[in-house]
């Protein structure tokens, strides 16, 4: 025991002496070595970043960042030439979005000729576990032409799947309920295509600076989420009436011009 104590002490002493002897020029050498290591690490990281296509932003998505223009990738319901376009950025796991679902549905029934409703994915993944996969499920339904049907089920039965560990089997049940091809549905729900569609939409919403769901745009103007169906109806009716008299006025103006 004593012997080892002595050897330990001796070793320490030796170490110290070695340190002292190497310290004058050694410390600058060491700093150089550290510098080289940091440079190598930074270099390697930079190579990985550049090699991976870093810097160049990923393809600025096919999803529209415009809150007024509707693209062919969007899920839209209602006539293309509708006077009012209502774009909703929503997340199927968001309780408020679920609360708005019947209101929005009611509105599109009340204004069948004048209102076009568009859904865009904004899955709040950082607070909702199943936001992403539920959006992918809606894409899988859209693949078979049943987006709105699936969206309605996802919203109305939100409580049934939000607390499930893996809601995919529940979504498959919904798909079979809608008489979709379940196998195809499952495959699409998990596909990269569905993922990237949802991600594109998420990124676009993020780039626009949106931070909550649901966010509604009426003809490109962001509106404070109306508190009731009545308020919503008024907002849309106001928009329609704002546009409706525009055409006779324009024609009367047209008559004025030749007089000048």
């Amino acid at each position, binding site marked *: 025991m004593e012997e*080892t104590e002595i050897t330990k002490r001796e070793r320490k002493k030796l*170490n110290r002496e070695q340190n002292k002897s190497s310290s004058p020029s050694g410390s600058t050498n060491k700093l150089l070595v550290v510098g080289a*290591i940091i440079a190598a*690490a930074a270099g390697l990281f930079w190579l*990985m970043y550049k090699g*991976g296509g870093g810097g160049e932003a990923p393809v600025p998505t096919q999803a529209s960042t415009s809150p007024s223009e509707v693209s062919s990738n969007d899920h839209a319901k209602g006539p293309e030439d509708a006077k009012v376009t209502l774009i909703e950025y929503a997340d199927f796991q968001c309780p408020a979005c679920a609360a708005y679902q019947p209101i929005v549905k009611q509105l599109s029934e009340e204004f069948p000729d004048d209102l076009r409703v568009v859904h865009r994915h904004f899955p709040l993944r950082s607070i909702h576990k199943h936001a992403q996969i539920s959006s992918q499920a809606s894409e899988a339904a859209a693949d078979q032409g049943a987006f709105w049907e699936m969206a309605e089920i996802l919203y109305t039965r939100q409580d049934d799947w939000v607390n499930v560990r893996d809601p995919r089997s529940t979504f498959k049940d919904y798909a079979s309920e809608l008489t979709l091809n379940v196998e195809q549905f499952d495959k699409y729900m998990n596909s990269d295509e569905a*993922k990237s569609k949802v991600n594109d939409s998420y*990124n676009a919403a993020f780039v626009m600076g949106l931070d909550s769901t649901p966010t509604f745009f009426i003809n490109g103007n962001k509106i404070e989420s109306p508190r009731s169906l009545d308020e919503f109806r008024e907002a849309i009716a106001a928009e329609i009436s704002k546009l409706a008299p525009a055409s006779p006025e324009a024609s009367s103006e047209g008559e004025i011009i030749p007089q000048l």
Partner: protein
Amino acid sequence: MSIYLYLFLSAIGFLDAAFLTIQHFTRDPFACPIFGGCDEVTSSIYSQVFGIPIALFGALYYGVIFALTLYCYLKSNRKLFLTISHLSILGLITSIYLVTVMVFVLNSLCFYCLVSATSSTLLFVIFIVNWLTWKRPRSQSESEKS
């Protein structure tokens, strides 16, 4: 040799985690090599603890390892180095957990997250190798003496 690798790996880990932390806050859609799952992983519910991004913890962890290793290197203190390299157990456990979440829960892989997992794992491997080679000669010499 292992101390150089420690400096190198913890520097890589630090840069990587710092990059992910910045991305977490700016949410700039960024290029994501090979697997393409960065956005989903870095914005998922698992990417933060009490509202603090895990990447920030990662950056702190690597930063601390780097600083302590640097201290040991400059002071030529091998023993302290062995002590502080026990920290790598923490990194390994965290990495195993996070990779499990990526593979089995999120079903998406994120390149930069895997870089961090790899450097954590390597730090642990070096620690084990170091620990074994440090123990062996000492116990041998002790047994020889007795």
